[in-house]
């Protein structure tokens, strides 16, 4: 197998040569490259805006997931106090799953920030090169014979074509990344929306529950259950604290926790 570098060099050169091949003389190349640069500038701006939107969406989602974790933790405590270990387990399983999603989000936000910076840097480089191409063409025309000028401008044209292809690829890549993240964000939202346990008296049994159970690390759940039991003093006599059929909304997580700190 040939090296990755030679493979990419070949693929990229083909693309770079195509980038400016519509223009045959240097004058046309310049007009065409200005036009291309303007188009790319627009695309880069849109690309950066898309990246920023995705990033904000992920940040909102992070906040939402953090809320869910607090809520599920409270629900698990309530369920355990009511001697419903099965429900407490389900709540903790969901909590574990959401914690996993939360860890992934941080690195995705960092990736998007990097994409944003790359696009900005590349646009700056491309603008500098288009400007340089303009100056270069005038200098070469004044100093060299027509044939020699053709060769020298040819080299500059290839250099410019490379830069355009590079920016073009960065745009495609940024778009793919934001699309992937949006798809993932939608999936996480669905999980959070359907994952809340609204009625503690209803046994869990949906597809989602099975899915969650399969994905979850049972060890962490067992450990948390043991810890909560210890905190509640085995939880045996606490069933009366939770009226049967109380919807979760009327007993928010904050109230289920020991109220030692004054409310803000």
């Amino acid at each position, binding site marked *: *197998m040939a090296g990755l570098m030679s493979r990419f060099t070949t693929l*990229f050169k083909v693309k770079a040569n195509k980038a400016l091949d519509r223009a045959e003389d240097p004058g046309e190349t310049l007009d065409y490259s200005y036009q291309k640069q303007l188009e790319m500038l627009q695309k880069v701006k849109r690309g950066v805006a898309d990246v920023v939107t995705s990033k904000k969406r992920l940040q909102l989602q992070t906040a939402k997931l953090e809320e869910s974790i607090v809520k599920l933790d409270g629900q698990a405590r309530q369920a355990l106090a009511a001697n419903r270990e099965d429900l407490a387990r389900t709540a903790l399983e969901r909590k574990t799953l959401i914690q996993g999603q939360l860890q992934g989000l941080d690195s995705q936000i960092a990736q998007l920030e990097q994409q944003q910076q790359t696009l900005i840097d590349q646009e700056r*480089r491309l603008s*500098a090169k288009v400007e*340089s191409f303009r100056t270069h063409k005038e200098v070469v025309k004044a100093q060299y014979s027509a044939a020699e000028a053709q060769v020298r401008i040819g080299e500059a044209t290839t*250099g410019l074509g*490379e830069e355009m292809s*590079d920016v073009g690829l*960065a745009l495609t890549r940024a778009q793919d990344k934001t699309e992937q993240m949006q798809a993932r964000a939608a999936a996480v939202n669905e999980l959070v929306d359907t994952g809340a346990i609204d009625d503690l008296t209803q046994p869990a049994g949906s597809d989602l529950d099975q899915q969650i159970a399969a994905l979850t690390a049972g060890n962490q759940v067992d450990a948390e259950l043991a810890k909560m039991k210890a905190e509640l003093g085995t939880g045996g006599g606490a069933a009366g604290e939770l009226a049967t059929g109380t919807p979760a909304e009327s007993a928010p997580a904050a109230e289920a926790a020991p109220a030692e700190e004054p409310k803000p």
Partner: protein
Amino acid sequence: MIVRILGRGQFQLDDALLGRLNELDNAVAAAVASGDAAGFSRAFGELIGMVESEGKPVPDDELVTSDHVLPHADTTLEEAREAFAGEGAIPG
């Protein structure tokens, strides 16, 4: 020689480094061939790191052709495999 890292621009490197560059590149290719994700990210990271640390960035306003082109620094094993298989990471 001029080496371009996609997304990061061009670097001017001493020609004497070509041997080392090819060595790392072969390690990357071997990792792709065997599907060794850890080996890939190690060798590829070293390759990118070497170009960036040993190379001097080509000024923004200079127009030169690259002798070698490396994919984006965050390329995954999967993307590298696609590049070997077809057009992959560089769509037409």
